[in-house]
């Protein structure tokens, strides 16, 4: 073991991964149900629940905006962290390249989500 111990920066990524995982567990299944089953088939929810005007209003409200942002951004950080470590398990050890690609995509998704939500206006 190396004598000088460098503090790991992993807590940042592990924190985003953990937050995304928690959110995915809480919201993931119900999102699949709402967007993929209930609304298209008109079960429980009205068929126009996800119409353009409804969703536009949702994305304009500060709470809806916030929810969309954390769902998109944190799901992405969660997924990219998992893919990064799975690549390592599969023997792809180009650490800095894969790390840059994975976390870079998460940064990109975060910025795009923020940009789009701001562009929708309040």
């Amino acid at each position, binding site marked *: 073991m190396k004598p000088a111990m*460098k503090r790991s920066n992993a807590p940042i990524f592990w924190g985003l991964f953990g937050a995304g995982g928690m959110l995915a567990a809480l919201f993931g299944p119900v999102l699949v149900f709402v967007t993929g089953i209930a609304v298209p088939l008109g079960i429980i929810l009205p068929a126009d629940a996800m119409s353009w005007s409804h969703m536009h209003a949702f994305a304009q409200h500060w709470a809806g905006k916030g929810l969309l942002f954390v769902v998109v951004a944190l799901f992405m950080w969660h997924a990219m962290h998992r893919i990064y470590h799975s690549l390592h398990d599969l023997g792809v050890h180009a650490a800095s390249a894969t790390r840059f690609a994975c976390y870079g995509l998460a940064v990109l998704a975060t910025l795009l989500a923020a940009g789009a939500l701001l562009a929708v206006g309040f």
Partner: protein
Amino acid sequence: MSESHRNGKVIRIEVLRYRPEQDEEPFLQAYEVPFSDDMSVLQGLQYIKDWLDGTLSFRWSCRMAICGSCGMMIDGEPRLACKTFLRDFPAGAVRVEALAHFPVERDLVIRMDDFLAKLESIKPWIIPKEQRSIAQGEYLQTPAQLDVYEQFSSCINCLLCYAACPQYGLNPDFVGPGIMALLHRYNADSRDGAAAERMEIAGSEAGVFNCTAVGYCSEVCPKHVDPANAVNQNKTRAAGDYFLRLARPKGGAK
């Protein structure tokens, strides 16, 4: 061991041999070993060494799962040879190899220098919060304070968890499950005051964040220690340290 103990049953024990002075690379060698239902894999190896092939090398001492010497891969799983019985291999054959992820010294003997260096680095002893004189009496602890770390103190340094850990296999710099269990054993002890110092190792680039929560370490532990739990608790603590150090007053601490 006399013939009358063995009821005429024979098992084929395949051993991965490696003698550095004469073998280019490891190879499998099979031995036909007479056995009885009460014989462990370790006793099978001892039969080979005593009666069939004196050149076979393996570590053992206590024969009762407390010394941690006879860890090896038995049919691909990290197990103690003394705690695994020949009767449990009904196909009539069992393969025995040196522990995975460690350099092989000879036959079933691995080099544990890496583990020992790591063990030393975590200061595996109680560093008292406050020195007490003999007149002040013993360091008292409640049963609840004991419960917090007791299971982690059962580690026998057998290294099965290291052979089970895919992340240690990929990156031997990782401190690994057993060391984290032991580090936690001392950090979680109410009498100890050196947690901050040990957390430098847990939170380092060689530390807990190399773990991907596979959990096989805890499954293979012959002493029911839960190293995966020690790693998880210290991921949370190391993450807390990482963010809170910015909020803490500077003082004398790093």
